């Protein structure tokens, strides 16, 4: 392209506001494109299989090694246990007194799950739960062993909406 034609072209660009119309064209085209909105309470994104959400715990698998608590960077896992004689096997076994997680401070890094030596893991975060908001500051956030074991897929308050 010669200098003259490019000059003419840039002059027309300037006068005819072609740059502005190009932008207008792009937005106009998008008027008719598929919308990306997810209608949240009705539609829900299915989290990926590895999604780190709310904890689950399996007490039977757990060997009470407390590695998860030790590996937690912010020390929010509280474990107490004592030894008891199992009447059936006549062996001493560790019994959990307490397995609490202060989920309010949890940052869902998943290091506890990585630290767990059992196979399959006895503590895992891949419960596909991401709705952990609550109306009360304390609600649903400090979970003990029973809550951990039967933590529903979703917190209670959305259950009735989902059906």
């Amino acid at each position, binding site marked *: 392209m010669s200098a003259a034609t490019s000059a003419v072209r840039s002059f027309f660009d*300037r006068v005819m506001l072609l*740059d502005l119309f*190009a932008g207008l064209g792009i937005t106009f085209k998008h008027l008719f494109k598929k919308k990306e909105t997810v209608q949240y309470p009705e539609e829900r994104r299915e989290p*990926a299989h590895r999604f780190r959400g709310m904890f689950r715990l399996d007490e039977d698998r757990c060997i009470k090694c407390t590695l998860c608590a030790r*590996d937690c960077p912010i020390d929010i896992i509280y474990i107490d246990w004592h030894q008891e004689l199992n009447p059936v096997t006549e062996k001493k076994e560790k019994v959990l007194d307490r397995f609490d997680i202060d989920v309010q401070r949890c*940052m869902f890094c*998943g290091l506890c799950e990585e630290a767990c030596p059992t196979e399959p893991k006895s503590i895992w975060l891949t419960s596909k739960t991401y709705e952990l908001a609550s109306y009360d500051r304390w609600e649903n956030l400090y979970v003990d062993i029973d809550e951990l074991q039967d933590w529903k897929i979703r917190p209670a308050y959305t259950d009735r909406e989902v059906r």
Partner: protein
Amino acid sequence: MAAPDTVGTRDSLFEVEEMELAFGPQHPSTHGVLRLDLKVDGERIVGCYPIIGYLHRGTEKLFELHPFFQNVPHTDRMDYVAAATNNLAYVGAVEKLTGLTVPPRAAYIRTILCELQRISSHLLWLATHAIDIGAMTPFFYTFREREEVLDLFEEYCGARLTLNCMRPGGLPFDLPVGWTDRCGAFVDKFPAKVDEYEGLLTHNRIWKKRTVGIGVMSKEQALQYGVTGPMLRASGVGFDLRKATPYEAYGEVDFDVPVFHGGDTYDRYLVRMEEMRQSTRIVRQCLDKLPDGPVMAKKPRVLKAAKDTEAYYAIEGPKGEIGFYIVGNGTPNPQRCRVRPPSFYNLQIVPELTQDRLLSDLVAIVGTTDIVLGEVDR
């Protein structure tokens, strides 16, 4: 009445009256909790004093409390829009300090993750920068693509923002089945999307008026202030750690480092747009060359650094050179772990760039520095 001071300064002669304007910390375009104390004459800025620290969480103190591997999630929370590069800089420093070598597959996956993170970080930057300048639509277009990047992250490591996706010595998991195909599909279509954003902005005369010649940073200024990353490359210094000291798999892929010489907001914009395209090239090549093998090196059960050893390891993050300086003390915890935050240094030059500019330019300049206050304040 006293005789007028005929040899006075301009201000004493004309009695220019300045106003103090507290720009932030609650302000829509300070990208978090930055506060700029401005001295303005009308709308012209005659003085600017940034006040930071509103997001200070003592991350460096936290690092000293925890064993090396437990610190990775903390690094996510500094530059929270670019967690993967933070992770890489940290684990890189730990590996340097403890002599670990990363398997090649892990190196490739790390490269892919970092480049995807660069794309997502630049997309977020573009979104907020465009909003600052008044164009609201690019925000939604960029977030549409950013969602897809985050989906890829989620599939890989289970988190979308605070990834925690690297460990000293490698990676916590291998890629899930089909991930490479989905990632490949994304990077193949992404350059067309960049063209779309550029169609809205690059040639738009209003955009150009707002950015060309605004906040010009010379090469000397950039070096004086330790400015790194895209800001440095827009000032005519073609320095990129990915090329200069190739780490992970960067030495084995082919890509260009965009350099512009204007040093203004527009050039910084162009650099980042081009970087996004180059990132897709890198990811594509890495996906094609991805070797098989383990993703975790053999490492001691408890990772310890020898007493009085230290290492500084830096990588090219989306915002500039992010580095970690770690001092070991013979225990599993670091004695000192210092972050070299790119945003901290890039923000420092803002008062100089905004001198004698208008309030609207300040917004454009703060936007173009691409700061994340989580990283500035740590």
